[in-house]
């Protein structure tokens, strides 16, 4: 089989960072080629070069033997390359149709042919098995739905080379299944597919071959995915052995610390919502599982006071009533929430890594109640950069320049670095994070729990929920549908509660 897409000695430098260092590998037509590697290893940078967004500083890429020099994304599209980027790139105030056909709207007598556009899109969506209203504005969609729009946009190009950068990090099971089916179809059609993910199960399920990156360099290419042992992949990636990434540690679990009763939104967006109640014990890790839109995020936002709750709710922490809650009160009471959407709700894009870590941590640690302690803040930042292995040239680096996974680590550091934590709510904490770092994060979670803190973890990754939770709450259609102790939890039991009957 001949190589359809080849990278040769590709290098890319940013100030203080060598993102790609003379990387060479090739991908075949009709095969899915996986890319994996630690956060910041250079995977996305490679795709940006493929997509014409960056020019390589050295080296070149070839398509069907032809050397390419892309000057813009338009050039790459013209050469038959479609890239689904890690950070979603949609236009919020345009419709699904317009987003999908962005840059290639059909015309008639010089005017946009709206009927044709709509027809084209709805037919295509149907063929792909994706349920989306073509006339809906993107702002009104969930993240998962927006991700599906992104995917459809790329597929609409009918490109020969299609590259996916962590497409499933915000998809639900159902949508993931659809995506896999689509990718397999594309493979049948002889397209060349590049697929980036941190989820090893996915890579095994989908890829024919894979290439592993570390620190901007290619470590290895495996021509037969099935022939590679998971341990080999992991050690190639993180440079060390890692037998069990969850590494669950038993802890002393104490009495109930957080008691939530009758929590429901004041202005409920959906009519099927009922007041919800649950509790967390001291030192306990409580997992929340559910399908997309199950209402986990919404519930936690109420608890944290971002959205206001209807009267009648009560929140007791250490026997003290806290409702009605507002964010600043939550934080001063020792409750923190790490949001699920790092781009919209997490990062301060223009600020440094250090600032991003310290923003929520400086209350009560000021000189004369007014001035910042710069030295301590720097130290805290450095400590977490090291602990979570955040790949950045320095703590002063602007966070927007970090890789997606590393940004996520910074946001986690912001919340885990808090002193005097009582309740930590982590909403999809390991989204986009490499296995090595996941392991680190789990360890920190156990550490935090060991201090007697209540930890709530929302995750759509079932193995993760099963791997780290002491107890699992399952949600469905806006309500808690069941509760499982660690001992009684397994995949089937959890899914049974999560899926509609």
């Amino acid at each position: 089989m001949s190589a359809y897409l080849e990278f040769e000695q590709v290098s890319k430098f940013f100030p203080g960072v060598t993102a790609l260092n003379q990387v060479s590998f090739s991908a075949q037509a009709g095969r899915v080629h996986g890319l994996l590697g630690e956060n910041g290893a250079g995977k996305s940078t490679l795709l940006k070069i493929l997509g014409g967004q960056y020019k390589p500083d050295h080296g070149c890429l070839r398509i069907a033997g032809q050397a390419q020099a892309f000057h813009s994304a338009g050039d790459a599209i013209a050469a038959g390359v479609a890239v689904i980027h890690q950070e979603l790139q949609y236009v919020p105030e345009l419709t699904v149709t317009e987003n999908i056909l962005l840059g290639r709207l059909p015309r008639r007598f010089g005017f946009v042919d709206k009927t044709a556009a709509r027809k084209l899109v709805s037919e295509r969506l149907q063929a792909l098995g994706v349920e989306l209203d073509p006339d809906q504005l993107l702002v009104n969609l969930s993240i998962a739905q927006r991700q599906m729009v992104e995917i459809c946009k790329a597929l609409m190009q009918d490109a020969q080379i299609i590259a996916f950068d962590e497409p499933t990090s915000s998809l639900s099971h159902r949508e993931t299944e659809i995506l896999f089916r689509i990718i397999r179809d594309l493979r049948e059609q002889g397209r060349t597919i590049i697929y980036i993910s941190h989820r090893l199960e996915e890579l095994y399920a989908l890829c024919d071959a894979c290439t592993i990156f570390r620190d901007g360099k290619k470590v290895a290419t495996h021509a037969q995915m099935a022939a590679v042992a998971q341990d080999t992949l992991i050690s190639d990636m993180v440079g060390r052995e890692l037998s069990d990434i969850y590494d669950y540690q038993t802890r002393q679990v104490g009495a109930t610390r957080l008691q939530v009763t009758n929590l429901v939104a004041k202005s409920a967006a959906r009519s099927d919502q009922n007041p919800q109640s649950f509790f967390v014990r001291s030192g306990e890790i409580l997992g929340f599982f559910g399908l997309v839109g199950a209402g986990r995020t919404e519930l936690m936002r109420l608890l944290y006071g971002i959205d206001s709750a209807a009267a009648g709710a009560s929140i007791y922490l250490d026997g003290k009533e806290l409702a009605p809650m507002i964010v600043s009160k939550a934080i001063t009471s020792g409750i923190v929430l790490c949001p699920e959407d790092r781009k919209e709700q997490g990062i301060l894009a223009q600020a440094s890594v250090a600032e991003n870590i310290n923003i929520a941590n400086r209350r009560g640690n000021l000189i004369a109640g007014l001035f910042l302690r710069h030295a301590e803040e720097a130290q805290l930042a450095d400590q977490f950069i090291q602990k979570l292995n955040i790949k950045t040239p320095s703590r002063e680096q602007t966070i927007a320049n970090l890789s997606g996974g590393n940004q996520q680590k910074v946001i986690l550091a912001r919340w885990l670095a808090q002193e005097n934590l009582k309740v930590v709510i982590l909403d999809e904490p390991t989204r986009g994070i490499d296995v090595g770092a996941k392991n680190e994060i789990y360890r920190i979670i156990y550490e935090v729990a060991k201090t007697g803190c209540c930890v709530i973890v929302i995750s759509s990754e079932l193995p993760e929920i099963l791997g780290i939770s002491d107890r699992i709450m399952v949600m469905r259609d806006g309500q808690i549908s069941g509760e499982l102790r660690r001992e009684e939890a397994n995949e089937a039991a959890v899914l049974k509660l999560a899926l509609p009957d």
Partner: protein
Amino acid sequence: MSPQNQASTVQTSTKISKLISKPNPFISLLAKQGMPLAYLILFAVLSLTVENFFSSTNLIGLMLSVSQIGMVACTMMMCLASRDFDLSVGSTIAFAGVLGALVLERSDSVALAISAAVLAGALIGAGNGVLIAYLRVNALIATLATMLMVRGLAFIVSNGQAVGISNESFMSFGDARVAGLPMPVIVLAICFLIFGVLLNHTVFGRNTLAIGGNPEAAELAGVKVRALRVWIFLIQGVVTAIAGLILASRITSGQPNAAQGFELDVISACVLGGVSLQGGKAKISGVLIGVLIMGTVENVMNLKDVDTFYQYLMRGLILLAAVMFDQFRTRGRHG
């Protein structure tokens, strides 16, 4: 996941979206057409309560008074929609008027005068566009700089003095009426028509909204973002120059210090009409309403003989009332 389960998930989510998207018809009309509706009500009230307001002479006068602002608001809408900003329009109006009048004085050729002014407008616009899109100068500073320079040019070429116009056919354009409507008002209507179509029914318009909504996404989808931005500014320059010529014809002279502060009026009319300064959101009907509100407020205050100093107060209050009404209704919608 089994196919059965899949199907029911789909059902649930459709149920949810149905629940969300069907409020009662009046509220949804209000939400969608809130501003036009509010303006209609305002208009009706004024017609009944303010003497002389609802008369053809007054309404024509009103429209005439917003004809320049309205024309430029059409292109400013595009400019803001693409997340840009243009402070140079006031100066361009003045310069185009002066230049047109000068050329007319020398050559007595209307065609030549119009061509010269329009060309100048196009160059100014394209200059702004290149500065902003290619040299990546901040739009505020770039257009502030052109605003100063173009105003300077207007003074320099006219030597600071009004340039008289005595060409009959040019002068009569500002006066002439077709079907009872003065030409400037007709031009205004045509502008709204053209830019309404441009915004909603052409690739140009949709791409403009796209680059305002998310320039990176547009770029990645292969939209020629920079070229498009230059075009938007260029068109703005051309339309502004035409507005300047019409003004010159109405006042039968090119005045180098005309239209000072014009830019702020135009931008305000757009923002009032719901165009977002963050880009990506624009509606031609909104802009029309914005322009009409600005004109009506002024018209009514003069009809009611409001003291000049109190007019400042009133204008401020009415601006606030208009946006707060808008805010209230959109907030109502989002819950």
